[in-house]
């Protein structure tokens, strides 16, 4: 028992000395099909209200805050995750239409689809028989 409390005291003092933990870089899958690019990101703990996606001409920025209810006076005895914010950015190329992007968040997974502008979508060319 005494050992456990020693460890937690150490853990607590450690978190105090490090004022700001760097944000978590969420793991992503990125794939492209004919219609556009899809990004899936693992962001456990993030709810709709705390998710922020910004797309401008050439940048996609994903940010989220994890909200995890914790009892008061909680002392950490083990922590793989040391930050409550997620952050990741990408550059996007001009054929992607950020204005038509569509995002969905379910059980901590963000699915973001950015379609290609119409003129870049493959078109089937009809061959007329003369």
């Amino acid at each position, binding site marked *: 028992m005494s050992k456990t409390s020693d460890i937690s005291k150490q853990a607590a003092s*450690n978190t105090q000395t490090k004022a700001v933990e760097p944000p978590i870089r969420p793991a992503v899958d990125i794939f492209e099909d004919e219609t556009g690019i899809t990004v899936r990101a693992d962001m*456990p703990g993030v709810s709709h209200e705390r998710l922020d996606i910004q797309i401008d001409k050439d*940048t996609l920025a994903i940010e989220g805050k994890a909200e995890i209810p914790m009892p008061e006076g*909680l002392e950490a005895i083990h922590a793989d995750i040391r930050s409550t914010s997620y952050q990741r950015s*990408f*550059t996007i190329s001009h054929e992607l239409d950020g204005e038509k992007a569509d995002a969905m968040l379910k059980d901590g997974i963000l699915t973001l689809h950015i379609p290609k502008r119409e003129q870049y979508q493959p078109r089937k060319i009809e061959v007329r028989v003369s």
Partner: protein
Amino acid sequence: MFASLRNFEGGLFDDFKRLEREMDQLLGHGPWSGGIRAAAHGSYPPINVGVTPERIDVYLFIAGVDPKQLEITLHQNLLTVKGERRLQPVEGAEFYRRERFDGEFHRAVNLPEDADPEKVEANYKDGVLHVAIERRETAKPRQIEVK
């Protein structure tokens, strides 16, 4: 500065972040003494454990699983979580990045010895599994009255 969506290698900035993370994993990070069953950092899913005098709170960061499929056991003071995460299959697309965990996992974490296996509650929200375990009465600090 940012990695391109289509870049396989990622930008210099991304590489640097990855290196930093790998160094952390390699050298260990934080003052927590690892139990013999504790997995290295970077294994899935990440776990946080916190204690108060009344209970032990375990958080598993495990997005996109069906909590009913998880096998959670508490044997003495060893909490084990077994399950699998299967990513939604994607057909007819070209992948640029595949970083997310896909497959079976198994993790165990040592809790304080006074964890009460009879009083456990689990709750899944926004991809975080929260397991709250009460501590046995004897472990709670008691005020002793002086007569």
